[in-house]
């Protein structure tokens, strides 16, 4: 996004404005920049290294879930179960550690739990033929119910170890950088690479854009969709490992409502619910937007009760802005801009 401004230093301001307005998710970035500028002026504690690493640490969970959600959205599905799966995986880690398993095997079980639930989601959708929405909605209820039954309503606790403290980012061995931030960056790079270079990435976009065309060109559509849900489940498992460490207790309500934030982040970042569109960097932009807004209202001293209103408004604003820019783009495609004003502006 930065290269856009430098590369077009010679073009007129009008063209720059048009480019900003018509670029996907440019509106959201604009909102983010304006918010940051305003907050930097209003509060001295906003534009500090401390605060930005704080934001980075907070956005890890939503970011991981949004990455998985982006892949599911690309193949044209939706995964409502991620919040519950995150909670259940957190429960798996806590229980395994209390049971006496090593940290590594506890993490492995949590990832396995996430991947397994993703697999069930994928099979219900592709083999049984349930709508994505219904299958993952049912899984949302089932996974949450399992965690409630398992914990019997009482949080798991007392499983933290010094190593786990470091992994969860409670201890900072490398200055500001914490392990969750490193994990999140690695996950973003991995998903970006898979979407861009791996055959699965191409197949995912093809499946989401046109299922029939994808099937006819020899793509195993069912396998691509199942794999997308497995990846989403794995991401939820990973987020579960990190949140179990961060909160140091696993309440039966751990992760409630995260599916909404994950969908919001993915969509704010430009993923389309109709499928075929979405990028890893979009998930970052979306998660960042949500987290920075939360952070800003906290710093501005707005009561925490306004949290939901703000999240919803940001989401609504982002999609409306995205839609308006799309409409402008369509209009400029129908009526090619006359060359005279651009020329006149360049000579002026």
């Amino acid at each position: 996004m930065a290269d856009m401004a430098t590369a077009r230093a010679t073009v007129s301001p009008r063209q720059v404005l048009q480019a900003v307005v018509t670029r996907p998710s440019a509106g959201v970035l604009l909102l983010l920049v304006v918010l940051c500028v305003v907050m930097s002026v209003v509060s001295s504690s906003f534009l500090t290294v401390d605060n930005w690493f704080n934001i980075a640490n907070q956005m890890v969970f939503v970011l991981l879930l949004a990455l998985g959600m982006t892949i599911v959205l690309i193949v044209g599905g939706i995964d409502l179960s991620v919040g519950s799966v995150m909670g259940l995986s957190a429960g798996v880690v806590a229980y395994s550690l209390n049971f006496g398993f090593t940290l590594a095997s506890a993490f492995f079980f949590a990832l396995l739990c996430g991947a397994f639930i993703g697999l069930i989601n994928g099979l219900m959708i592709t083999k049984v033929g349930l709508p994505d929405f219904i299958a993952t909605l049912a899984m949302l209820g089932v996974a949450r119910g399992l965690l409630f039954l398992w914990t019997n309503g009482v949080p798991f606790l007392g499983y933290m170890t010094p190593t786990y403290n470091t992994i969860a980012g409670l201890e900072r061995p490398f200055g500001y950088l914490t392990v969750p931030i490193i994990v999140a960056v690695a996950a973003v790079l991995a998903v970006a690479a898979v979407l861009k270079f791996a055959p699965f990435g191409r197949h995912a976009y093809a499946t989401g854009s046109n299922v029939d065309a994808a099937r006819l060109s020899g793509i195993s559509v069912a396998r691509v969709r199942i794999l997308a849900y497995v990846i989403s489940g794995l991401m939820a498992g990973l987020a579960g490992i990190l949140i179990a460490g961060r909160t140091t207790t696993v309440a039966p309500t751990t992760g409630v409502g995260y599916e909404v934030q994950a969908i919001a982040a993915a969509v704010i970042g430009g993923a389309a619910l109709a499928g075929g569109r979405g990028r890893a960097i979009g998930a970052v932009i979306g998660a960042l937007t949500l987290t920075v807004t939360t952070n800003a209202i906290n710093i501005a001293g707005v009561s925490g009760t306004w949290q939901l209103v703000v999240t919803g408004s940001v989401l609504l604003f982002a999609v409306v802005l995205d839609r308006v820019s799309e409409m402008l783009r369509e209009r400029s495609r129908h009526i090619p801009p006359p060359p005279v004003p651009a020329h006149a502006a360049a000579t002026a």
Partner: protein
Amino acid sequence: MSARDRLARALMVEGAVVAVVFVVIVVFFAASSPVFLTAGSLRDLFVESVPIILVAAGMTCVLVVGGIDLSVGSVVGLSAATTLLSLQNGLPLLVGILIGVGTGVLVGFINGAIIAGLQVNDFIVTLATLSIGAGALQVLATNTQLTGVEPGAFTGLTSNSILGIPQSVLIAAVVIGVLEFVLVATSFGRTIYAAGINGRAAHLAGVSVRRLRLQVYLLSGSVAGFAGVLLASHLNSVQPGLGSGYELTAIAAAVLGGVSLAGGRGSVWRAVLGALFLVTLSQGLQLLGVDPLWFAIVTGASIVAAVAFDRAIQRLAGSLLQPRKPPTRPPADGDESEASRAEAPSLPTQA
């Protein structure tokens, strides 16, 4: 008509499956618990299910046109709060009810205007208004005292009975009857189905699909608002988080009743049956002494089972209805076409 054809047609009747399953669980609970089929217990069951039934009925109209309305859950809570707040401050009963319904109309209008006017994805828009509505309720509940009103005309909406039936149940029945009538017997209803089956074709046939979509969101919002009013009358108190999850239960109820998320298929009474099924299930399990922690699992599993079962039944009925070997063809060809037909019904499931 052979017995086989008759069976196939019986299976094809939409809603037959959920109706049968509903009767089965009612019989099961009645057999396992002596108090299940008593007047008091049934009365509780219906009073409890009024809000969710109304929300499911409104949701059905949105689903049939091919949309979705996730905001209804927070509309129920928010409308309950605005109504209670108005009545606490001494406004007349009718004004309080109108304010509650008006809250729903307002949210429905925001949804409809953005979805139909700007053509933004309905799922995301209503997800955002769900969040905003739930947040508004939280703000309202923390900044004001929603303690409830003196028992009177408002609480009487639920507690008073006519011929032994609670008023709220009667009101809900009337609303459902009107909605069913509108959907099935009016030209407005037919355009809803037409737009849900094929929006483009409906548009070409002269239906203003945009206005129609605005109208169904207004409808869904106002019905959810009214459900909130009745819920406030039943509980006479409002906490933050009231009504959360209603949207999912309502969608589950509609889908259980055979309403298609893809639009164009469904009816109000079947969604109501689906909602009654879910409420009966949870109440029945409660009577049997099942740990309430099981409810989320049982509900989720029953949704999957019901939809999968419905698919299987439709497929079975479809294969039963296939004409058997055409007499003009040699048997070898007939066998081949039989094999290819068996494959055919599984194709649309990818849609």
